[in-house]
């Protein structure tokens, strides 16, 4: 029953979040700030993870292809498909759920326990809309860019490994990347990314918004936010894959 209570309250909160903003220009300004905070400031970790992820996928694929009848360019093909279909959109979103989700829950939770949300409510500001809507919009706008960058960097990481170790020749790797490319895979990845961005920000904001207590509870909300947004990502990932690819 507890889970039903949370689901109901989550959708009620979303109703508040998407109600008419008091001053559109302030919301727009906050959205730009959130793009910087949630997106641009995550670029470093996304880039680092992506390069190494691509490198590891390439080495693992190459080392697992022993049969002589399998062409070596399959390594590039597998790396590309793995990165575009799953690693960049899902794994990077899970990482962002940890980084961005915990920071959103902690920020909003701290505002709650320090009575700043009460202050907004008493002023007549729609606190849920003012605090959460810019984060949701910002993440849904910037995360696709982050994921596209992640895709390029992962594939670049794989190429660097090919050049550095010779596990596959760079030419074979590149021809594998080009082989049988279906642009819909990118569309599928970006659709997933936008849905995950919504899940990360809204679930984390929900946990922050209903924090009660003090510093300990803020920490707890932050952890719970990461756990639940990750679970939502995994479930949404399965459902979207079933709907879009099957």
């Amino acid at each position, binding site marked *: 029953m507890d889970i039903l209570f949370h689901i109901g309250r989550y959708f009620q909160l979303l109703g508040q979040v998407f109600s008419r903003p*008091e*001053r559109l220009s*302030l919301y727009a300004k906050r959205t730009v700030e959130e793009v910087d905070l949630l997106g641009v400031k995550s670029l470093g970790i996304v880039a680092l993870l992506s390069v190494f992820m691509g490198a590891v996928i390439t080495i693992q694929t190459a080392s697992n292809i022993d049969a002589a009848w399998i062409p070596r360019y399959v390594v590039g093909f597998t790396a590309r498909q793995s990165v575009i279909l799953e690693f960049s959109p899902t794994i990077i979103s899970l990482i962002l759920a940890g980084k961005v989700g915990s920071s959103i829950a902690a920020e909003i939770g*701290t*505002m709650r326990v*320090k*009575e*700043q949300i*009460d*202050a907004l*409510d*008493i*002023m*007549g*500001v729609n606190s849920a809309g003012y605090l959460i809507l810019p984060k949701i919009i910002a993440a849904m706008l910037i995360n696709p860019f982050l994921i596209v960058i992640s895709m390029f960097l992962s594939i670049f990481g794989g190429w660097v490994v090919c050049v550095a170790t010779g596990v596959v020749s760079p030419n074979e790797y590149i021809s594998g990347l080009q082989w049988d490319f279906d642009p819909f895979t990118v569309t599928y990845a970006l659709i997933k990314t936008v849905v995950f961005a919504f899940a990360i920000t809204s679930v984390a904001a929900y946990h922050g918004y209903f924090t009660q207590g003090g510093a300990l509870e803020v920490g707890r909300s932050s952890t719970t936010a990461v756990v639940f947004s990750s679970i939502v990502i995994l479930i949404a990932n399965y459902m979207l894959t079933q709907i879009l690819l099957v």
Partner: protein
Amino acid sequence: MIEVQGVSKRFGEVQVITDITATFQKGLVNQIIGKSGSGKSVLAKCIVGLYKPDEGRVLYDGRSFHELQLEEKRVIRQEIGMLFQSSALFDSMSVLDNVMFPLKMFARMSMAEMTDRARSCLERVNIVDKDKLFPSELSGGMQKRVGIARAIAMNPKYLFCDEPNSGLDPQTSILIDELILELTQEFNTTTIVITHDMNSVMGTGQNILFLHDGRNWWHGSREELLMSENQELNDFIFASDLMRQARKHMGN
């Protein structure tokens, strides 16, 4: 004027406040006093609309707050200024931006007019040359003053102060109390102060509501308070030796 009529609130099995009826007058510093856990803050949150009472109603100049539509509630809320116990300033904003925030949200003013208005509110609470500082760079007393400046930025009709003296030294407490009294008279606001600080009660309290066990136990003026024979009220007021001495002195 704010009227509270038969307000009750319970959380689960715990009845926090029961059937409270009181009137808070315009142009006066109305105080809600009582021991910790007596229901002061819950009553205040029912009055400002953060909690919906289980029974009873709250009237703002005859408008029953909890029965209004959301948009109508927002109109009343824009007439409310509130100073929180923790000041509740926005950490990510400078002092000036904190005071300008309600103006940016609701006032139809140019940026220059908003800045002027915010600066004049800060000057009114004796905060000068601190515009660009952030709340974390201010002392507790200064944070309270900035909180008051933000509360008066929209020319409120109703001013709420939740334990404005908590965490402040006696001198700063007196300054804050005097400031609240001055602003109440200057803007003719209906001011409600939640406190358990007896210095504040004796210094600025004009219309006092004593809560005990979540009930309206006593209601009267500062002068009546000192002469009251109410046992629970006396236990609360004369808990400190200083107050007992003061009463002895008055008796003599």
